[in-house]
């Protein structure tokens, strides 16, 4: 049953050292404010999973929160590589991290299987691809009807899913619109879920019947954080801050510059600082 509470409380309640964490968002609706809160609370030894780890996981890795990363594309979208992730993988700074690498199709199927309560997902994938040589979590099953060999990966069932969405209503139902990615699946696959939202409205009923809505009893904590996806975007509220994604390449280029930026913009800030990026509701 969803309870509406401040973000600091939600993260303190759900995220513990050593937890596995999915903070999803495919370019759109990336939960930046929540990631900053996890960093501020000093969580350690996290297993973080995401199809497209970008700036927030680069930040969490650079701040030493992460023990293991499960992912399928680790880049700064449209800009280049993730420098803090590279530093961790190539040089073990600030700590070595374990990586488990998949394709997008594998991750999307694995979240889907997690949401569907299955132990694994099967799909036609990885043929002729070398990842299966280095990732023991890529196996296969044989179709009992055709004999075709299909790839199999374990379901993803994080301890906690954290997503950002447009709206919740007073009962705690959540609406996600636009590029919805795997957020619904991540929440349904997780043991606990936190959703940051731009705003709380009276009631989500009566909108179009087929929208992507998470009922209140699938979510644990809802926190109102206007602008909480910045520099990512929230469709209907504010656009992607493409300039910041380009800037991040310079900010993260060296360790000292990175730490100074994090100190000022994360450690000494709070969720309320995202409000200046918030836009108007649709």
């Amino acid at each position, binding site marked *: 049953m969803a309870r509406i509470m401040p973000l600091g409380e939600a993260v303190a309640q759900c995220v513990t050292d050593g937890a596995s964490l999915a903070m999803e968002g*495919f*370019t*759109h609706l990336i939960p930046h404010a929540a990631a900053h809160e996890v960093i501020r609370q000093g969580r350690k030894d996290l297993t973080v999973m995401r*199809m*497209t780890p970008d700036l927030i996981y680069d930040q969490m890795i650079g701040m030493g929160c992460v023990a293991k990363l499960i*992912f*399928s*594309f*680790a*880049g700064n*979208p*449209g*800009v280049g*590589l*993730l420098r803090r*992730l*590279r530093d961790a*993988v*190539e040089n073990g700074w600030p700590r070595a991290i374990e990586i488990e*690498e998949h*394709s*997008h*199709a594998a991750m*999307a*199927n694995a*979240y*889907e299987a997690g949401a569907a309560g299955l132990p694994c997902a099967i*799909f*036609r*994938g*990885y*043929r*002729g*691809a*070398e*990842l299966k040589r*280095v990732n023991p979590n890529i196996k296969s099953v044989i179709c009992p009807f055709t004999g*075709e*060999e299909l790839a199999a990966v374990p379901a993803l069932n994080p301890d906690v899913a954290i997503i950002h969405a447009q709206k919740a209503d007073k009962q705690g139902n959540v609406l996600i619109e*636009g*590029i*919805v*990615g*795997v957020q*619904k*699946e991540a929440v349904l696959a997780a043991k606990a879920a936190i959703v940051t939202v731009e705003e709380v409205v009276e009631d989500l009923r009566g909108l179009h019947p087929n929208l*992507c809505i998470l009922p209140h009893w699938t979510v644990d904590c809802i926190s109102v954080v206007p602008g909480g996806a910045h520099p990512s*975007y929230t*469709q209907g509220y504010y*656009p*992607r*801050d*493409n*300039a910041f*994604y380009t800037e991040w390449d310079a900010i993260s280029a060296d360790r000292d510059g990175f730490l100074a930026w994090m100190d000022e913009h994360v450690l000494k800030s709070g969720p309320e600082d995202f409000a200046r990026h918030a836009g108007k509701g649709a």
Partner: protein
Amino acid sequence: MPDFKPAEMMTIAAARALSNDDVCFVGIGAPSAACNLARLTHAPDITLIYESGTIGTRPDVLPLSIGDGELCETALTTVSGPEMFRYWLQGGRITIGFLAAAQIDKYGNINTTVVGDYHKPKVRLPGGGGAPEIAISCGEIFITARHQKRVFVDKLDFITSLGHGPNGEGRAAFGVHTKGPTKLITDLCVMEPDPETLAFTVASLHPGVTREAVRDETGWSVAFADSVEETPPPTDEELTVLRDLQARTKAAHAAG
């Protein structure tokens, strides 16, 4: 012949390879520019799909990321991640998958994972993303890349996605029955796989480009087709539309 840059020739040559009836899975960067150029010129009804879930999208400016709001706002419909990879890609509905490459070998196998050893990489690249399954599920694959020796290598450090096999043994050996890479479009030339060896072979040279220039920037011993054509130079319309698109894009992203 209007004045043009090699990168423009590459994008224009890639756009020309697409038709109005294609359903195209679009990677970010040069593929996105080529696909939208095709849509804005000779293929107005081409269906563009981005892996963020946007189907039939018609962006006015090129997206910086694979999931910019513009893609969703102009799409016919936007579906979830699992649906995109299951129904639309794996379902065999895509005619052309358009990929870029950090490293490519002569058989069109691609590496976007690591330079060096996987477990102790010299450079940790972003990884495969959608590419491993785009490479096997689309009807055919077009690849576009800057023609440079560090990209066009003799042997990949890692095979992220399948072309015609690491030894040119063909895709059937891996249980894959789609055509795979049929065109490699660079800023110097257009290459196609030799029907016998399956190795990428120069089919046409862009205006002003010599065989020597191609050899210098190719890490394998490159072959040329029996009759190498000259790539028709960009038309005024192609250049104008591409430059307008890029100018709109630049203005939009700076303002963002």
